């Protein structure tokens, strides 16, 4: 299955912010986490993730710092800001609305993923 580009673009910000709520992280780890969360279905490229992180940083949703964790390389860590948390909450409300609507429109409502469909 391939998730369409539009859907990836729309869900990117809440996914990244959601991951950063779990704790600060860096690009490579974020990509791995997304891959794990989606069972390998969401394969973001570096050309997608890093510009997105930089945009979120510019918007003030995340902050980035170069850190050296003992035993590791120097690395750019991102952590979510208060504003980012508020943004995530807002996005969550919007996504919930969408999901609720989809559940009602589609037969076999309430069963996600839609196993009963076929």
């Amino acid at each position: 299955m391939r998730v369409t580009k539009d859907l990836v673009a729309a869900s990117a910000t809440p996914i990244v912010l959601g991951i950063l709520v779990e704790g600060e992280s860096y690009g490579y780890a974020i990509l791995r986490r997304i891959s794990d969360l989606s069972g390998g279905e969401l394969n973001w490229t570096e050309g997608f993730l890093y510009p997105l992180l930089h945009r979120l940083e510019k918007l003030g949703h995340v902050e980035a710092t170069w850190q050296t964790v003992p035993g590791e390389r120097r690395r750019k860590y991102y952590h979510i800001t208060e504003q980012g948390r508020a943004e995530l909450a807002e996005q969550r409300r919007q996504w919930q609305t969408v999901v609720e609507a989809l559940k009602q429109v589609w037969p076999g409502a309430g069963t996600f993923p839609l196993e009963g469909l076929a």
Partner: protein
Amino acid sequence: MTVTNGQDELEALFAQWREHVRRRPELSSSDADELEDHLRNSVDELTGVGLRPDEAFLIAVKRMGGLDDLSREFAREHSERLWKQLMFTGEAEDGAKAGRSRRDLIAMVACAAGAAISIKVPGWFGQSFDDDGNFYTTNLALFALPWLAAFLVWRRRPGPVVAGGLAALFALGAVGANIFPVDEDSQSINLIATHLPLALWLVVGVAYISDDVRSARRRMDFIRFSGEWFIYLVLIGLGGGVLIVFLTGTFKAIGLDSGDFISNWLLPCGGMAAIVVAGWLVEAKQGVIENIAPVLTRLFTPLFAVVLLAFLVAVVVNGHGIDVDRDNLVMFDLLLALVLALLLYSISARDPLAPRGTFDVLQLVLVVSALVIDALVLITMAGRIAEYGTTPNKVAAVGENILLLANLAWSAWLVLGFVRRRSTFAAIERWQTNYLPVYAVWLWAVVLILPPVFGFR
């Protein structure tokens, strides 16, 4: 291959990759660090499952996707980076570079101030613009160009021999401008006033290539530098004009006349300083923005080719020879010099490895028509000299036309060879860069030898 060897090899690969990334204007050095960390994580993971370091590297790079795609995505996010960026924006993390550009800025300000003050110094010793035109007419180039050369020398740090040679050449220029008893109406003073600045500009060229005097590449760089410098100077001049308009208008509005300040200070000092500033701008922006002179060349080569061809057709149809009075002579010399400039800049802009195309044919048309026109002018001139005898002006003009004729003739031959795949583009480049000293010799001869030979007429 031993394991340590593999690790060294991997580091070399990373270094190479990094250098590649840094050439992308879309990616800052912080981005490069971040992506490198990403790449290293990928490599670590792949070696962790048993791949050899070089294999892991290849796969990791491949997974990251082409740098083109990556850069495009970054460019979309950071479009401002493509517009940057002259000099005050040395990236914070790029300490060495920022320091360098700050020191350059200080050196430039010092040299520009030196040039601005230089032109006022003779005034303190009783020379003024009004009473004796001669002094400023012949010396003008000597106020600013040594400072521009000084700035370039400061950047290039040549050995004492080259630096001493430069100083000696400028001193020679000062001698040439001032020892001859030429009066205001003589042809000699005009020759000195027009040829000395060009001769001194080539001295600036020596300063420009002073870190590698023998290199043909560096000479070509100087030709590029000259075009860009000229364009910046024109732009600064336009800005200066706007400044003067507002200065005059606003001060007039409060009842003050700024005319004296403008003509005694702003114009002379600003003009001299602009010559240095323009040089610094070219140095500071190298590689950041695409050069503009070659772009203009692309636009004007076809247009000039058409004009020259039309002129030749008109000469043939009309049956009327070229009338070379003094004004026309200057115009034809300028025209031929312009054609040469178009040729030079299109050479400087051309990728030597690019395939031959229509543009190269156009260039051939341009050069050949210029060559024919030059020959026509020379024939007419020879006739006039036979009829009326020589003057310094005519000798200078004939000399210049012969120099141009020789250059254009051989250029035409080389361009033809290039278009017909008989010779390489490098040959054209080499011919032009090797020809530069010929101009220098001639220009200095006009300044130093012609006036005494003609008894300062």
